[in-house]
């Protein structure tokens, strides 16, 4: 039970963080918390964290952001399937390398999301600004990793 509950709760917390209002200037730099948490669970407990959960989290992200239904969901599913595939290699690598890998995946997701936005004619004026968010996420990855790992160990998940 807790195997499903803990990822769900942490994903919802991440969603809350995404919705939290920030000053307009730093909004583009906001790391994609939901994707980071989903990636953590995909690396840590790939047997229990499924694609469907990542997809649902993506749909909720879409609704909360007012984007097209499926836009973030597609991006999350794509990076989660890569993470699930690579988890054995990533899990044993040092935090710095993990951070780089996470940044690469988040860049991929951001590209997908922006691509869809562009296709429906909603490209932002300065799209390059929005590629900064994965770099910020890279800086926050160790923090997320440590918090979620402690939670996972306390509740004995995986």
């Amino acid at each position: 039970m807790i195997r499903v509950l803990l990822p769900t709760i942490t994903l919802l917390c991440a969603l809350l963080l995404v919705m939290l209002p920030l000053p307009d200037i730093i909004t583009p730099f906001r790391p994609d918390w939901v994707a980071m948490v989903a990636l953590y669970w995909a690396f840590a407990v790939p047997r229990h964290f499924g694609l469907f959960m990542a997809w649902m989290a993506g749909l909720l992200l879409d609704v909360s952001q007012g984007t097209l239904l499926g836009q973030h969901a597609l991006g999350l599913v794509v990076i989660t399937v890569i993470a699930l595939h690579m988890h054995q290699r990533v899990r044993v690598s040092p935090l710095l390398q993990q951070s780089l890998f996470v940044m690469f995946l988040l860049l991929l997701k951001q590209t997908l999301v922006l691509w869809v936005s562009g296709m429906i004619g909603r490209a932002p004026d300065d799209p390059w600004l929005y590629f900064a968010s994965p770099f910020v996420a890279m800086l926050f990855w160790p923090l997320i990793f440590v918090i979620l790992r402690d939670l996972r160990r306390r509740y004995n998940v995986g």
Partner: protein
Amino acid sequence: MQPLFQNGGGPILRFLLLAVLSIILMVADHRDQYVDQVRTILFTAISPLQYTAALPARSAEWTYAQFATNRALHERVDRLQRENLQLSARQQKFETLLAENDRLRELLDASAKRDERVLVAELLAVDLDPFRQQVIVNRGSRAGIYRGQPVIDAGGVMGQVINTGPFTATVLLLSDPDHALSVQINRNGLRTIAAGRGDPERLELLYIPNSADVRVDDLVATSGLDGRFPANYPVGRVTEVNRRPGQAFAEVAVRPLANLDRSREVLMVWPDQGQEEARRAVHEHPDFEVEVMPDGTAGDGSTIVTPESTAPTPPADDATVIPEGEADDLPGEGGGEAP
């Protein structure tokens, strides 16, 4: 134990399935309103999160209010009292004008306009996708908010509701690139369309010929022709008219009068119900005939006597809808059931 999600052939298949499903959802969401139900359900599911996310901003506001100095509050009360006095003075004049207008309309036998019903809603301080011009308000379908409902603020028209949950609703602002509404230039009644451009300070008027009489500082108001926004609400002022000799149409920019990016309280408007329903009935059921009662009787048989005049009362309340076929049957072959 059977692992729920194992590595192997499964994930790839599942991935393809979910990816295709996402794409179908996106296309359906973009093209049409097929997936509105899904969106409403998900939207309802996250509304507690939206309220929670708005909490810090709200509590900061509350704290600020608690620590506001006595003097600041006094000044504020003074200012509001002055404003109230001015507004009520203006309101008196407005009332008399309204009565006069009603009387004239009755003489012309035009349908009367009732006051629109409004409800104050607050914006929830929630961050949305930065590419879209949307806001969330703290009223939803429980308060009677419906899809397509006009939203205004103290300055003018703000936008319309595009999605409702029970306790929250999403409002698409005028400035969103997907938004356009039917407007007219107040000075000469020139009708046109105001479309958003993704900038809260700028709308664009479409299809204005180079020779059209549009000047900077003209007031642009809703025309009511789109059937969504009630007529004569201010939208914005013309800031720029750029006549391009080589092109078919002039480029006209309008600055919205509503504070699209600063308002905190908005008004949800229910347009004149009688008119709306009548229009909808005609629109949705072309076979139906909207029956207008020419004599002074309302639908329930009671006679309306207005103190001002004995002129025919416009059927604002009781636009009775009678299907054409039945209406034909009623007077002639009504005896069919008698024996």
